[in-house]
């Protein structure tokens, strides 16, 4: 009879012992799969969210009156446009996608609009980045959704603004923010229109998550800005992404503590079960020896059993862990349900790593089974 046949028959016969082994492996694997699947979803969604939210850092003049800033939506002070070059020239910062901006409120066609002047983004010296925002060319403008709708403005129309005629390069989709009531033009056009040449009131930027210290991101950013641009300060507008990131870090810290614990408990659990199995089957080992089976068969019987426990338990654990991630992941990681998708690569890992692990846990019991003196058990005591 084939070894695998014997293993399967024994497993079906000693259901409890086999089931407890499966339970141990499946529980451990399920836990890993749950946290990996949900954690990966969290990471993915945070990245997407940060990108969708656009640039999440606002660098503004230091003496900005913050009450007015929040009321109006931008700083009423200005700083030299050159600041953006100074910041870009600074290496080793966690700022990227630098976007010099000048914002003003003004009346246009009888309504209050926000005029936004920007330039194409600048990259920090040591980074290659793809642009994330649209930039108007000289003489061109982009219209926010609400303005375009209200005044029936379309692409290639011309609009008059503070005595200058601009061609509409396009209209923007609805954003549900002040952007819908904004007009975007090239920075230097806007500077000329509002007569503040060479000045900006904000640098938008993105906090790149290329560092991963335990320190608070904003604290690091502030420190860096203080040395690069002492006259400016930075605001971070990413409350959702931040909360999520914090949550994920929290879970990861927790995992770092609990994973070694789980691994040890699981190994002990499997080891003890394997040991009990060997003890229970001493006579069987003796009779196999008497029938002429060698050490190899005896060893493969017990290691093979561990491998089967690992493979079945690993697959089971993957299924359970994925189901748990789909059900409870959104609560634990504060992500949307759709963000969590089964990670089938983990299935491959589960059915490879779990049997290897179970096999390792069964090494000592197997050695005892192999070295056991069959004459002792066959003595009929």
């Amino acid at each position, binding site marked *: *009879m084939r070894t695998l046949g014997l293993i399967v028959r024994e497993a079906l*016969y000693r259901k409890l012992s086999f089931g407890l082994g499966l339970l141990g492996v499946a529980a451990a694997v399920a836990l890993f799969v749950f946290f990996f699947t949900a954690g990966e979803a969290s990471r993915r969604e945070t990245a997407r969210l940060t990108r969708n939210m656009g640039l999440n850092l606002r660098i503004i003049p230091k003496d900005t009156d913050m009450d007015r800033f929040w009321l109006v939506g931008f700083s009423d002070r200005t700083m030299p446009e050159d600041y953006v070059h100074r910041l870009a020239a600074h290496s080793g910062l966690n700022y990227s996608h630098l976007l010099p901006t000048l914002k003003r409120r003004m009346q246009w066609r009888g309504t209050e609009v926000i005029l936004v002047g920007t330039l194409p983004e600048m990259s920090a010296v040591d980074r290659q980045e793809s642009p994330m925002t649209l930039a108007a060319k000289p003489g061109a403008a982009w219209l926010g959704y609400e303005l375009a709708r209200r005044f029936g403005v379309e692409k290639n129309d011309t609009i008059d603004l503070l005595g200058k005629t601009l061609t509409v390069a396009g209209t923007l989709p609805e954003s549900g923010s002040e952007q819908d009531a904004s007009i975007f033009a090239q920075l230097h056009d806007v500077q000329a229109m509002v007569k503040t040449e060479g000045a900006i009131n904000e640098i938008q930027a993105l906090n790149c998550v290329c560092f991963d210290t335990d320190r608070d991101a904003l604290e690091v950013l502030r420190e860096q800005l203080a040395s690069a641009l002492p006259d400016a300060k930075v605001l971070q507008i990413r409350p959702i992404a931040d909360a999520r990131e914090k949550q994920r870090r929290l879970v990861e810290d927790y995992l770092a503590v609990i994973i070694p614990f789980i691994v040890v408990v699981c190994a002990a659990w499997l080891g003890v079960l394997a040991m009990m199995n060997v003890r229970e089957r001493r006579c069987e080992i*003796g009779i196999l020896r008497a029938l002429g089976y060698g*050490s190899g068969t005896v060893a493969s019987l017990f290691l093979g059993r561990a491998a089967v426990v690992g493979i079945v338990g690993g697959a089971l654990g993957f299924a359970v862990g994925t189901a748990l991630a789909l059900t409870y992941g959104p609560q634990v990681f504060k992500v949307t349900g759709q963000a969590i998708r089964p990670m089938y690569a983990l299935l491959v890992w589960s059915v490879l790593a779990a049997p290897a692990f179970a096999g390792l846990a069964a090494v000592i019991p197997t050695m005892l089974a192999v070295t056991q003196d069959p004459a002792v058990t066959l003595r009929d005591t």
Partner: protein
Amino acid sequence: MVELQQVSKRFRGRAGEVIALAEVDLHVAPGEFVVVRGPSGSGKTTLLLALGGMLRPTGGKVLVNGVDVYALTERERARFRGENIGFVFQMFHLVPYLTVLENVALAATAGRTSTVWAAAGELLGRLGLSPRERHLPSELSAGERQRVAVSRALLNHPKLVLADEPTGNLDPDNAAEVFEGLAVFHRRGGTVVVVTHGTTADHHANRIVHLRDGRIDGGSGEKRMA
């Protein structure tokens, strides 16, 4: 068939040394049916295990079919055992999760599966166990279990069958059936060495050997049967 030359077995334990076998010489001719008797602790089981290549003696030589059993490597010895020797134990030692038929077939460490199943089925039939082929050992009576164990010992057409109190747990009727199974093997030319307290096997025996304190008792210690 079997030749024990000055075979000794000492067990060293914490409580001191036990001499289980003391320089035993024994010759069993091919086709002989030998009954071994002796008081408890006289070394009967030790003798049988040493004979079967399951327990290395501390001294002397064991030749089975002309082969010095303990000069073989562990692997060779296992193989030799599988091919030449069948065991029957007092406690049956059937594998609990395999059916009766599978337990018998388990003795075939190699060979074509179909022939093995057929041979196993035939042996079980001869011992009246055909209707029980698909049962688990736990569903069998003690007598039936021992007949399964006898079938398993005979599957590989061994030259030698060693049985250690095979009827110790059986009533006389069942004991007779088990010995009949061994006797059939013997009549076809097989060699049998059986340890037994009872006398049920005596009329099959060519010879009765008495063991006492690890020695074969009384001069030659052997009583020839007619």
